[in-house]
């Protein structure tokens, strides 16, 4: 595949050149960073640690319309994304990218989800290798790394004056060809610098968890009291799951406006009491203990048992953002000890 470089000041031109695509890139608002559709290239930033909200929202939005209808008729108008909507997503951190390979399995499983899949197919994923991992990053414990390429179509490395762009898949050709003048060619020297950057970044990752045995151990702790030391301080909010790049649960609700309606799906989380609440009023996960247990167990035991891969990429968001210091590495470590 190809090697290119983009001078930093040319990034806006580069984005502008991609006018055949909808371009998504991180945008800073105060101290928060989040992917947004870029209409004004100057709003995009590649100078960030990681986005607050992972790019999963680009394939699996917080809220999306499945179909629309009229209350008095039986016809529906599906809202599956069309093939025309070609997108480029710039600046995905490798951990978040890896999450797509994990979530792909779920949305392609027994019922292929056209909404998710269509967006995935239509998107060219351009990664951004990490130079300064955050203190709670632990991607290397889960088979990832600061420059992990799977399933990216291309990856950028910040090499000071410029970004080194390495294309990975055929899919990326389409966007390289439209980028035009903004791209310059690169070679071995840049490639070597990139490898060095990745190596140095990897050394900076201090937090680790040895995952061997965890998927097997967790089910045996189903009724264990150790969960309560975490769940007792759990707020039952949706931060850890909403911000998790691999969490993919959704709720489906009908929304009616006078006589127009839509069926929409929106993020849901197993941390909410309503998540498992039955119509009868019975709740099989009545307390935060069961919910905390479920979150960890699903990621580290149920999902790997079913799909062969742990549903965690070590991005560290759930640790960073948890207001009550429920630290997944700490939980997993304890689970091994008890």
């Amino acid at each position, binding site marked *: 595949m190809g090697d290119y470089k983009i001078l930093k000041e040319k990034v806006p031109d580069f984005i502008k050149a991609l006018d055949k695509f909808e371009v998504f890139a991180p945008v800073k608002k105060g101290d928060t960073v989040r992917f947004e559709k870029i209409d004004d290239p100057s709003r995009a930033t590649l100078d960030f640690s990681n986005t607050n909200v992972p790019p999963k929202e680009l394939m699996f939005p*917080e809220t999306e319309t499945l179909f629309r209808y009229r209350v008095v008729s039986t016809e529906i108008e599906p809202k599956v994304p069309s093939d025309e909507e070609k997108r480029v997503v710039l600046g995905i951190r490798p951990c978040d990218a890896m999450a797509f390979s994990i979530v792909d399995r779920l949305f392609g499983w027994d019922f292929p989800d056209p909404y998710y899949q269509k967006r995935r197919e239509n998107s060219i994923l351009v990664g951004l290798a990490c130079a300064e991992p955050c203190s709670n990053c632990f991607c290397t414990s889960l088979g990832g790394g600061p420059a992990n390429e799977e399933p990216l179509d291309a990856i950028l490395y910040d090499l000071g004056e410029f970004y080194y762009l390495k294309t990975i898949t055929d899919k990326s050709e389409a966007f390289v060809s439209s980028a035009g003048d903004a791209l310059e060619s690169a070679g071995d020297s840049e490639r070597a610098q990139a490898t060095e950057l990745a190596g140095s970044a990897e050394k900076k990752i*201090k937090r680790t968890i040895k995952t061997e045995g965890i998927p097997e151990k967790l089910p045996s702790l189903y009724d264990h009291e150790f969960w309560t030391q975490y769940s*007792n301080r759990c707020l039952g909010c*949706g931060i850890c799951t909403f911000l998790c790049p691999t969490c993919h649960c959704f709720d489906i609700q009908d929304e009616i406006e006078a006589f127009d309606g839509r069926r929409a799906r929106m993020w849901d989380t197993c941390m*909410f009491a309503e998540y498992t609440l039955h119509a009868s009023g019975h709740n099989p996960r009545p*307390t935060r203990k069961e919910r905390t247990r479920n979150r960890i167990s699903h990621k580290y035991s149920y999902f790997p048992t079913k799909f062969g891969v742990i549903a965690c990429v070590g991005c560290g968001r759930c640790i960073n953002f948890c207001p009550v*210091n429920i630290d997944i590495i700490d939980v997993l470590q304890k689970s091994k000890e008890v």
Partner: protein
Amino acid sequence: MVDENVLRDKAKEILSSGEVRRLIGWKRGTYGYEAAPCVITDASQADDLIFDATCVQNPASFITLEEKLPVPRGQQPDTRKIAVMVKGCDSRAVVQHLVEKAYIRDDVVILGIPCRGVIDRRKAEKIFGEAPQPVLAVAEKDGVVIRVNGEEKKVSREEILADKCLRCRYPNPVISDYPLGDEVEKWADDDFSDVSEFEKESPEEKWAFWEEEFSKCIRCYACRNVCPMCYCVECIVTKLKPQWTRRSTDLSENTVYHIQRAWHLAGRCIECMECQRVCPMDIPIMTLNRKLTKDVKELFDYEPGVDAEAQPLLASYNPQDPEEYIM
């Protein structure tokens, strides 16, 4: 300041007495600038307890977070008390709980901690960067002594303390069974200048501000769940019949959610600022709460969470209440 040994001894004593079923306090976190709230049930766990300027969380929130599980037939519910360690601000939550009959005075054992302020994670990160190891911090009269990444430094209070501390009017608990440590002097006050400043803006400017902030919201409900005052059995925000707010996230629903949340705290918010602290999207949630706090004080001369005998603001009235805007 409180001596942690005194605190632990008292906790052990209370837990050993069998009088309480759980004790809520803080312990050292696994990393960074914030301690971890903790709930302990046994005297043997009491040595984990700490109190310093990293203990930002409001333990009173965890009193009402406790689920009441169905009691198996033939058994009795555990009606022993809950012990809770509180700073000044936290203690107001307990008072307001009492006003609202969330529990009765006899249900709680209050360990009051005089406090010189707690640090704001966001401010600290800007000064010292990320802290992979748990940080130790002590607020003193003339600044905060903080130990980050192996180095001890002293910074001014203004630089690092949480905003709520910089305008703290209740450094000492307003209610307490066991005051731990000597009272500290009040050193700050609240003139609501931040609110007054914002009030001066035009409706368009105000909305432009909120439009951006509310559109960030991911509706994780952390602000609601962490709030010691949000403990309805079923929150109207998640209720389906009727559905006051749709679960879908967009500017409209997010705005309405935030108005609802703020409204439900009118005359009830005790300004622990937990809602704003926990927000993963940095939404300045307290700006709404503080507007109401200010108005409630100005219009009705009312302050929640200071008098356990007070009537709830919106369940009472004065025939002479202001009539502005009424035709």
